[in-house]
């Protein structure tokens, strides 16, 4: 070992003598702040709400390259909706949006607690990112298909999927729609336009493009939406998805949820030297937009723009949602080990629920009293759903999927070797 080290050092000195530039060194990016430091997002430029123009959906992608480097924002610090991206939603729609986000947050809180109580093995929450999936869902039409990751349950909540079925899946109980086969939160609902979550990263991105290509092949009107996180854009399937989407101008919206953290790894490790994740789309000629992911109105407006492009057969759009993962990656993660505890409160784009609430109050459509009342109603509804789900069992107690189900559904028809194994298992 000592020999190897001294050899390496000698080579280093020799190389240093041989070139006028000296030896090479490896750059490994680091976040600005680690635990113990003071959170600092002063390097994140936040454009003023309303300052980014809204192009026509059939714009030449070359004309809007700067949208990949800005942030589209609608809600300003005073809670007003301003600029060309405002005005896509009515009071009723915004109230529903607020209710969806509050429901998701309450659902998360209850399920986190259920996990800590041992009622399930694992959970992943959305804290801080509720606007992204809840608002996006409202831009889609029935029949459209999402290819989500594990942090888009807002697509189900905002789409009216029964909470009790989500909980049945989380508890892997006798009513689990997936028969206990999947890790908690890896939902699937064809009817609700929610493709089965894999848990493997980015595989679903190219599948979304394939689904969209199929819709175009069949001269259908339905479109697809792919989802990926900032860290998982580094997977080669991200590149494959963008190549296919670009080549075949597939009717797909490709979403990147940049919540700043891939478990413990800050987004700079996946982003490298490119200015933004959205900018990755530019080399493919795909219109790329960055949006304030904590601004329900902005998310909805940009999603609507991209969905319309896809629907009009104008091709794919890449959207980067700039947001922040307030909670841990999952119940198996402790973020205090790698980022300052105060970082989430320092995040400059605020809390999506609070921002929409303030906006609705500003509009005269909402009040503190009604908000409190809604919180209580939502909590009641979530608790009622949980009670019902728990009456069908939790992971280690009560009703369970049958062991026989373990052998079913591997193939359409059970082949002889599985039949033999099922017999051997005595089920």
């Amino acid at each position, binding site marked *: 070992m000592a020999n190897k080290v001294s050899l390496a050092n000698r080579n280093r000195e020799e190389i240093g003598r041989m070139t006028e530039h000296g030896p090479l060194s490896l750059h490994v990016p680091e976040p600005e702040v680690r635990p113990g430091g003071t959170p600092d997002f002063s390097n994140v430029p936040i454009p003023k709400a309303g300052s980014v123009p809204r192009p026509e959906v059939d714009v030449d992608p070359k004309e809007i390259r700067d949208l990949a480097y800005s942030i589209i924002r609608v809600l300003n610090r005073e809670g007003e909706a301003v600029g060309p991206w405002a005005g896509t939603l009515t009071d009723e729609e915004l109230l529903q949006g607020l209710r969806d986000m509050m429901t998701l947050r309450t659902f998360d809180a209850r399920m986190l607690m259920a996990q800590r109580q041992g009622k399930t093995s694992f959970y992943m929450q959305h804290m801080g990112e509720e606007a992204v999936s809840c608002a996006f869902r409202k831009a889609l039409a029935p029949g459209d298909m999402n290819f989500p990751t594990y942090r888009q349950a807002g697509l189900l909540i905002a789409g009216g999927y029964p909470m009790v079925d989500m909980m049945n899946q989380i508890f892997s109980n006798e009513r689990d729609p997936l028969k206990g086969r999947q890790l908690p939160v890896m939902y699937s609902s064809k009817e609700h336009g929610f493709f089965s979550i*894999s848990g493997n990263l980015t595989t679903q991105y190219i599948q979304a493009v394939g689904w969209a290509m199929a819709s175009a092949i069949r001269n259908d009107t339905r479109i*697809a939406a792919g989802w990926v996180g900032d860290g998982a854009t580094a997977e080669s399937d991200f590149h494959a998805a963008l190549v296919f989407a670009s080549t075949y101008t597939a009717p797909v919206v490709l979403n990147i949820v940049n919540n700043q953290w891939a478990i413990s790894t800050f987004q700079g490790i996946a982003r490298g030297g490119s200015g933004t994740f959205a900018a990755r789309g530019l080399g493919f000629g795909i219109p790329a937009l960055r949006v304030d992911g904590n601004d329900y109105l902005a998310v909805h407006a940009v999603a609507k723009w991209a969905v319309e492009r896809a629907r009009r057969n104008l091709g794919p759009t890449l959207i980067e949602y700039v947001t922040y993962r307030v909670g841990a990656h999952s119940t198996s993660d402790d973020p205090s080990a790698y980022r300052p505890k105060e970082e989430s409160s320092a995040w400059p784009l605020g809390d999506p629920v609070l921002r929409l609430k303030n906006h609705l109050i500003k509009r005269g459509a909402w009040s503190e009293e009604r908000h409190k009342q809604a919180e209580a109603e939502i909590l009641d509804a979530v608790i009622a759903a949980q009670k019902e789900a728990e009456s069908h069992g939790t992971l280690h107690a009560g009703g369970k999927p049958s062991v026989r189900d373990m052998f079913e*559904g591997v193939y359409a028809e059970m082949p*002889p070797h599985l039949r033999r194994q099922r017999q051997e298992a005595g089920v």
Partner: protein
Amino acid sequence: MARMTMIEAIRSAMDVSMARDDTVVVFGEDVGYFGGVFRCTQGLQQKYGKTRCFDAPISESGIVGAAIGMAAYGLRPCVEVQFADYVYPAYDQIVSEAARLRYRSNGEFTCPIVVRMPTGGGIFGGQTHSQSPEALFTHVSGLKVVVPSNPYDAKGLLIASIEDPDPVIFLEPKRLYNGPFDGHHERPVTPWSKHPLGEVPDGHFVVPLGKASVRREGSDLTILAYGTMVYVAEAAAEETGIDAEIIDLRTLLPLDLDTIVASVKKTGRCVIVHEATLTSGFGAELAALVQQYCFYNLEGPIARVTGWDTPYPHAQEWEYFPGPARLGQAMRETMEA
């Protein structure tokens, strides 16, 4: 009926399937305008249009990933990976996605795709055009794995694979594309036009998945083979004079265990032959099953004749390739045991 090469039979299978079912789409590298580097898709784009048969970017993961999405939509994609040696970038899509989609979604989403790929050696393709990766797929629950050995089976099995509700890995022994090959590389190639299994119906027919075929009946020992090795086995039986029963497995997963067990119980001896490397090869699975189900009928140890556990070499192709001499030697030893 028509005389077909294996290439023509495979093309005919896709043609028939595309004509019968407009949800069948075909794509892959060089597959569209040009018709594939082995010409298996020649003419399909002209006939069915470029939204049903088209060129794909050089991205195996993208090809299979897109096919999975299309299948989830309701199409039946039959995609080509140009060589089995290039399938590895798509392995995650095949193993983690295609194979498990039905199971993990409790049947809400299914994946009726076929991934076709030329497999095996014998063409001086070196390490990147010769591999036989079937065991990487037979190890995966949720997949079906098919290896045809002749034009008739290739067409019938490919149609069955396209019509199958689950993902099928369809490995085409490229050394058999233009004629049977028994390992005697020094001899001239026999074309399929001179072989009875080059006689293939023009229209629709299926060879069911999961059914082996007894290619030669015999009483001395059983040879379990698939793909190119079926002809090597035939040559070895003739050259050794050993009355071998040769079973062409045709489908590795699901496996036709009944046919295997019936044969070994009859002969009492078993030799397994495949081109792929030995260790953890499909032969290991076959040997385990044969000993499990035929232990008291066996009169000697089960032998395996395979490619060596080295990367597939170039200049040493015929020292690597398990030909009739090596197989014959193993058969003689098995008879003496």
